């Protein structure tokens, strides 16, 4: 038993807020005329936001020197997966009513659904190996390699959104831009800039 971490507890509650908002709106009619679409939109948005938050951990630790943040990464990642699960469950149950013929056809025929499905499936092994035990069993190096799949999953998530939009590409492109920045921040060049940014050394 580790000592309680107040930061972790606060972040846990923070990550539950979007769910609380969804439940509140569902109960009060705040999801509007098409609640299934609203649920899909909002769970999808929170999946992407939390994926990006997860990917922001390493750059923030390296460039800003926020060492404490690394401890919160697993929870952010798991919450991203949690909202992805709600997103997929909403699609399967409330949108498609578990009509598997329609679902299979949708996944095979529509690239944006295909991309979303692949992105989600990529997150499953990452969530499954999120425990300390799994990390030990896999070994740090293999675990790390496996968890690089999150880059691909986030990219597919942005593409999934981009392909869905009819005309105004701004919101998915904004997610894409943030993702690009977070990935670029991992390059050696960014690390070399660290002293220039005035951040304290990470070690």
């Amino acid at each position: 038993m580790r000592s309680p971490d107040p930061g972790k507890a606060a972040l846990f509650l923070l990550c539950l807020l979007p769910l609380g908002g969804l439940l509140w709106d569902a109960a009060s009619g705040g999801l509007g005329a098409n609640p299934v679409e609203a649920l899909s939109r909002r769970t999808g948005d929170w999946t992407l936001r939390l994926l990006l938050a997860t990917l922001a951990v390493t750059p923030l630790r390296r460039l800003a020197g926020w060492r404490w943040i690394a401890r919160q990464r697993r929870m952010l990642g798991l919450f991203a997966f949690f909202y992805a699960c709600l997103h997929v469950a909403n699609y399967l149950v409330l949108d498609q009513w578990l009509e598997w013929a329609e679902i299979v056809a949708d996944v095979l025929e529509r690239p944006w659904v295909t991309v979303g499905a692949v992105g989600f499936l990529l997150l499953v092994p990452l969530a499954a190996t999120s425990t300390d035990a799994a990390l030990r069993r896999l070994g740090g190096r293999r675990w790390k390699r496996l968890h690089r799949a999150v880059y691909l999953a986030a990219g597919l998530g942005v593409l999934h959104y981009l392909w869905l939009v009819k005309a105004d590409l701004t919101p998915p492109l904004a997610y894409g831009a943030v993702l690009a920045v977070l990935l670029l921040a991992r390059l050696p060049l960014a690390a070399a800039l660290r002293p220039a940014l005035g951040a304290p050394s990470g070690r």
Partner: protein
Amino acid sequence: MLIRRPDPIPASEITDPALFRRRRAFLRYAAGVLGAAAVPAAFAVPGPHGRERLEVAVRGRFSTDEAPTSYASVTGYNNFYEFGVNKRDPARLAGSLRTRPWTVVVEGACERPRTFDIDELLRRFPLEERVYRLRCVEAWSMVIPWVGFPLAALLKAVQPTSEARYVAFETLHDPEQMPGQRRRILDWPYREGLRIDEAVHPLALIAVGLYGEVLPNQNGAPLRLVVPWKYGFKSIKSIVRIRLVPEQPPTTWHMAAPDEYGFYANVNPDVPHPRWSQRRERRIGELRKRPTLPFNGYAEEVAHLYAGMDLRRFY
């Protein structure tokens, strides 16, 4: 064929029929008044949704008896990109649209091109109520009690020539009044078009109201097209110009993505949109999807217009 269906919408979503009928009783009582729209606003008694009532001369022609979608959904869930891309934006932002004075130019291949004032149109053509299904290309649908007059009546007034093979429509272009037009999300002004035989089909309606009252701005005030056998985007809103033309006119969504939005855009469950299967639809107010009908259930009336055409090619 107007298909009778059981009433699957939760009772809470439906305007109380008694209330709806009382409104009708009032309208009958009010008949003889020159027309609600012509009555000075000070004397106009607003309807239950707070908007000016319209005098309806003909009721129910071509109407489905399916339960209308709730007023809140019809007026709160709109695609009207001139006011933003989110479904709630138009209800929030369309207040900046000024619908008086408003004129509609009808021109092109016709004997008597002219400009109509909206209030003149309301006086000139007897208003009908038409309860139509509306099917959006995004696979949701509604049932809407429109008030309007046949497009054919308006076109007849300008006497189209034999050159007139298509009808082109344009929405107002004024970013001051339509804040969504400040961004080039689409190639403004919004444009749509019909073949002339589609345009003079008795189902094609110019709507000026819904639920017995004046059309709210987010629904395309002061006048819009309603073509119930086609996907919703064909039913252009807030019309300022109608042009009779010899060639198929460019249309906004077709210009934006020709592989996704055809000129005809007939509701067709057999032709999938790249992003949505069109086999089923969600009626707003219901959770489960229902099968989509060819021509949105209006096949008996309109299928003959497309005899011999390959509707997979001319989607």
